[in-house]
């Protein structure tokens, strides 16, 4: 076992983690711990752009951007946070340009901008050109540029190190720490993949920037490595997760594969059609049509398929039509995604429409933070020295549905804020003692899992999880489908206790890693479904067919889920459903064999905008 001490430890080296590192490392001794080489992070897969009201090509301002973000999130957005993001977007883009990011340019040589879903002029009048972009590899260029600047600044990385525990000076998981009491994050425990050795990092500030959890679903645009690690570690250590029922399904995944085709395809003029060739989005969003927010487009597509207007031999997808665009325009603006269609489906987008279907894409929910990126342990109290930014966090700037491009913005704005806040706090704070056995639990867990004799295959359990999530907790949800899903997850949690790995070695044991990741996936899927069961309304990315309307009277609050030990009561049942009132709407408890998941809530911050009906 090795021991390290840093002022700031950042967990994750995607966009949010490296943006934080650039701030923190110039102010304080900083280490970045990442389970991948930084340039492998999934920020690099983002394609279309990053919105900021630069007004380089037409009139625009941050207030319109704020409004679009709030409306796009179906009013579950914390409006103070959205306003900060839209204002700081402008500097965030300019920061990246000054760091060297090769944005596409206007004829005058300024950063070019294009249209994107849900981004409008003057509160919904028409689509506005707000997305700054670098062809259809904007995320790739952001990731490369941030990494390049980390090289320039000599940022210290621990690559292919896997953080397996968060050390906090109070046991929050028991639920007995009174509100208002000071709680400090003091370190993390990491596993060096190459050697199998355990490393304990003591830190004054810790930033979680571990990304999303798309692999709870089968059809997803997410990387194999997006397994909700940071979220699950927080949950297991007693921290709440916020708004986990809200998962975004990106409308245009390559049919059957889930590989992302950017919304920029529609921003550049692409059109969605059903099997009759009809531009069906005209019926669902008459004003902005194919550029409606993703939740609306994804549902419309699923509905077309459900009503028998899907294309293909099984009528199970719709078509993204680019054939009316000039090949030269496609090559200049959308080279990567058209190559995906060629490589993976053998489709030539110049002449043939591309089969597409919604793909699990983004977790709006995550570890709750305030606008300074400090992690909350309930609705009010922060954990001192603990920060989160990016997809792992819930600020909440995305509410119940994120607008396209706002994730690249989120990682830059709140990554920067997290890095600054972490370094500033580290300068004032002292190291807190770590418990002597800080790594004991992690080592025991690893050894038990690694040496467990024959049992179930990790992949069988994972596949079953992903299949039930796709079947029961996707674009359309009902009480029945979600109860089925939760019942399946309970069975899979039991089966997980019996999984074993075949690779018994210590070096680069990815078999073991996948087993650990599966544990995280199960925990995240579980709270996602419990939160979805509890929210008996439809809002943004969460659509309940049995409760198709938004219900502001009872549900205009953020969901908070907590994992707590059982206290004497019997396990494995749900609390009895009472009539839904504002007092009971978030009073649900799900009991498992050894713990329970308790639902709570947090108010939504509303500043400028009263909730209105959401029409496009």
């Amino acid at each position, binding site marked *: 076992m090795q021991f390290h001490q840093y002022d700031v430890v950042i967990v994750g080296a995607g966009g949010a983690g490296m943006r934080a590192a650039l701030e923190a490392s110039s102010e304080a001794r900083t280490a970045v711990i990442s389970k991948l080489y930084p340039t492998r992070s999934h920020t690099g897969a983002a394609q279309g752009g990053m919105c900021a009201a630069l007004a380089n090509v037409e009139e625009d301002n941050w207030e319109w951007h704020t409004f679009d973000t709030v409306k796009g999130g179906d009013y579950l957005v914390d409006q103070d946070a959205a306003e900060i993001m839209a204002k700081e977007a402008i500097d965030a883009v300019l920061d990246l340009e000054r760091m060297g990011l090769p944005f596409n340019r206007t004829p005058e040589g300024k950063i070019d901008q294009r249209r994107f879903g849900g981004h409008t002029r003057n509160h919904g009048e028409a689509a506005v050109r707000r997305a700054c972009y670098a062809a259809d590899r904007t995320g790739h260029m952001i990731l490369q540029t941030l990494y390049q600047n980390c090289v320039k600044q000599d940022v210290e990385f621990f690559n292919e190190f896997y953080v397996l525990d968060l050390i906090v000076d109070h046991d929050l998981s028991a639920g007995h720490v009174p509100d208002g009491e000071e709680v400090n994050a003091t370190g993390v425990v990491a596993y060096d993949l190459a050697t199998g050795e355990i490393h304990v990092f003591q830190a004054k500030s810790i930033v979680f920037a571990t990304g999303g959890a798309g692999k709870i679903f089968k059809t997803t645009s997410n990387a194999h490595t997006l397994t909700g690690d940071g979220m699950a570690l927080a949950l297991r250590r007693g921290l709440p997760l916020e708004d986990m029922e809200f998962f975004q399904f990106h409308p245009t995944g390559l049919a059957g594969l889930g590989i992302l085709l950017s919304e920029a395809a529609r921003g550049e003029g692409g059109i969605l059609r059903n099997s009759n060739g009809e531009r069906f989005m005209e019926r669902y969003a008459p004003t902005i049509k194919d550029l409606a927010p993703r939740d609306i487009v994804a549902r419309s597509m699923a509905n077309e398929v459900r009503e028998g207007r899907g294309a293909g031999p099984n009528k199970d997808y719709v078509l993204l039509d680019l054939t009316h665009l000039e090949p030269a325009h496609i090559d200049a603006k959308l080279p990567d995604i058209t190559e995906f269609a060629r490589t993976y489906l053998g489709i030539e987008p110049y002449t043939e429409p591309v089969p597409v279907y919604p793909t699990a894409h983004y977790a709006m929910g995550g570890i709750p933070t305030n606008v300074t990126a400090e992690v909350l342990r309930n609705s009010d109290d922060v954990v001192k020295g603990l920060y989160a930014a990016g997809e792992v966090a819930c600020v909440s700037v995305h509410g119940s549905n994120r607008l396209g491009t706002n994730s690249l913005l989120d990682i830059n704005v709140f990554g920067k804020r997290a890095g600054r806040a972490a370094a500033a706090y580290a300068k004032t704070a002292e190291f807190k003692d770590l418990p002597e056995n800080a790594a004991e639990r992690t080592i025991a867990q690893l050894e038990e899992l690694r040496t467990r004799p024959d049992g179930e295959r990790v992949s069988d359990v994972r596949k079953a999880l992903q299949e039930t999530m796709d079947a029961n907790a996707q674009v359309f949800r009902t009480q029945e489908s979600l109860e089925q899903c939760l019942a399946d997850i309970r069975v899979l949690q039991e089966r997980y206790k019996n999984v074993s790995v075949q*690779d018994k070695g210590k070096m680069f044991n990815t078999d073991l890693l996948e087993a650990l990741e599966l544990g995280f996936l199960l925990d995240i899927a579980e709270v996602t479904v419990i939160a979805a069961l509890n929210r008996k309304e439809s809002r943004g990315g969460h659509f309940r067919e049995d409760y198709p309307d938004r219900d502001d009277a009872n549900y205009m609050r953020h969901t908070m889920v907590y994992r707590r030990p059982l206290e004497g009561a019997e396990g494995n049942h749900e609390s009895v459903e009472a009539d839904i009132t504002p007092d009971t709407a978030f009073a649900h408890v799900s009991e498992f064999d050894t713990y329970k998941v308790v639902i709570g809530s947090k108010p939504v911050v509303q500043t400028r905008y009263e909730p209105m009906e959401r029409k496009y």
Partner: protein
Amino acid sequence: MTATLENSTAGAPSAAGEIPSFDVTIKVRRYLPESSHGDEAYWDEYKLTMYGTDRVLDALHKIKWENDGSLTFRRSCAHGICGSDAMRINGRNRLACKTLLKDLNPNKPITIEPIKGLPVIKDLVVDMEPFFASYREIMPFLITSGNQPSRERIQSAEQRERFDDTTKCILCAACTSSCPVFWTDGQYFGPAAIVNAHRFIFDSRDEGATQRLEVLNDKEGVWRCRTTFNCTEACPRGIEVTKAIQEVKQAMIRRAI
């Protein structure tokens, strides 16, 4: 060891109708220093039933998930963007996630080895540190002088286009580890580092070209390139790597470094 995995439906996309299946033999170069094989590398052969839309990565996953959990490789995004899974497939460097099995003539065994020229850690996983060390040496970041402008730097669309090709690099090392000079002389910077130098040397906003060209003029630098075009052929992003190297050489001659 020979294993047969038959009639499994795993990996069959449900959305594309009937997808033809076929049997294929995958030969993987194994290196498991902790096993009884010790430091000896060896070949394992697997017979699999796969589908027309499956990639080499799907075959590797099928082996790992259904047959031999010890098979070790890196992967992440699975669609050619993250650069994790460059490997030597039928003797040629490619990304496993971007290579469809049906395009490889499944009638013959498909061989999979780690990329060459970097130390093998386990199976298909190599030590990438020497590769990234070369990358870091060419100063892969924008170098400017003077005050930061308050808005963006102005760059024309043509100036931006000048280095577009080399901004596509995903640092997968397919090019560098396909280069015969790199194989025989581990000191050579290799194509990827030169590509990333090119990306800045030809960026109109950058003022560090001279410094970078001096680094690349070193005896292990750009002049070692023998223009065999392996790198261009290997690049999964379609970058004209050899051309970029030639342009860097010409820039040196013009500047008489």
